[in-house]
């Protein structure tokens, strides 16, 4: 029994993914995050009940399917150091996929791990969605997997009220596809608002947005 639970947990960790660095914030914080490319849009709305737990809802559009998934986000571990911070987040949820006016069941799990200082940033996420829909020819696999890895650096150090600028390189992969998509980002943030503009190496674009209230 214990082996089975360990196996399921390990699989969950292996499958999960996330697109955003901070799916849980300070107590009573509301977060709105949006990730956009020509092929895909994601919006995540979170409300943090504590620094360790947030309730949230995901909207995701990809390949003519739309996912609406309520979810719970957990901060599994945070390391607060003098000059850096590292986090591991885990999310799980269940909702539905809308395709051609029909609704199908969908379940989500997501893992985020990050480390950042004022100068450097490393980020990994993996998103897994288990789907009941077998009708979308553009999304044939019942298991939707999407991974991202990012590294970033700040060319100059800015304080809280200043405009912070980061240079970020991102690699992302849908596990059922062979290609790895590379995107370079310029990230700007100031106080409670962050936005990123990206240019893919193959010519596409990306725009991300994040705000905490």
């Amino acid at each position: 029994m214990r082996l089975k639970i360990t196996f399921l947990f390990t699989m969950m960790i292996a499958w999960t993914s996330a697109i955003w660095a901070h799916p849980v914030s300070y107590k009573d914080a509301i977060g709105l995050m949006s990730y956009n490319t020509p092929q895909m849009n994601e919006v995540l709305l979170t409300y943090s009940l504590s620094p360790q737990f947030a309730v949230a809802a995901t909207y995701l559009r990809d390949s003519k399917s739309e996912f609406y998934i309520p979810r719970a986000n957990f901060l599994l571990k945070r390391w607060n150091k003098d000059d850096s911070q590292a986090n591991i987040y885990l999310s799980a949820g269940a909702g539905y996929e809308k395709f051609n006016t029909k609704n199908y069941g969908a379940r989500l799990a997501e893992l985020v791990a990050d480390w950042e200082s004022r100068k450097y940033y490393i980020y990994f996420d993996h998103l897994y969605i288990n789907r009941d829909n077998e009708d979308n020819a553009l999304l044939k696999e019942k298991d939707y997997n999407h991974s991202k890895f990012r590294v970033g650096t700040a060319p100059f150090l800015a304080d809280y009220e200043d405009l912070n600028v980061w240079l970020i390189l991102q690699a992302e992969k849908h596990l059922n596809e062979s290609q790895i998509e590379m995107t370079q980002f310029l990230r700007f943030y100031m106080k409670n608002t962050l936005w990123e503009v990206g240019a893919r190496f193959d010519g596409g674009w990306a725009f991300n947005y994040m705000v905490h209230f």
Partner: protein
Amino acid sequence: MKQVAVTIIILFSALFAVAGEELKVGVKGMVCAFCAQGIEKKFKAEPEIEKVKVSLENKFVLLTFKDGKNLTKEKIKEILKDAGYEANFDEKSPEPIKESDKKPSTEKK
């Protein structure tokens, strides 16, 4: 009579010029503007707080209390914990507070 009036005005001005007590608290893990924003918001919600100044560069939050008011270290630790961070009372800030640091980033309204 004129001298008495001037003296009273000066005394009143001096009374209002007295700033509340200040406390500088080191914060572990505060590396980004989002971190600072949460910490600032949490402290601003406290009725004892007059002003909050966050310095990412020096990793501290400078609290100015209302006259006669204060927060215990335990309460400050709790507020920072709610924001997801850790208070650091033991270590001295790498740099002393500059005059420019004392200018509040936010004044409670």
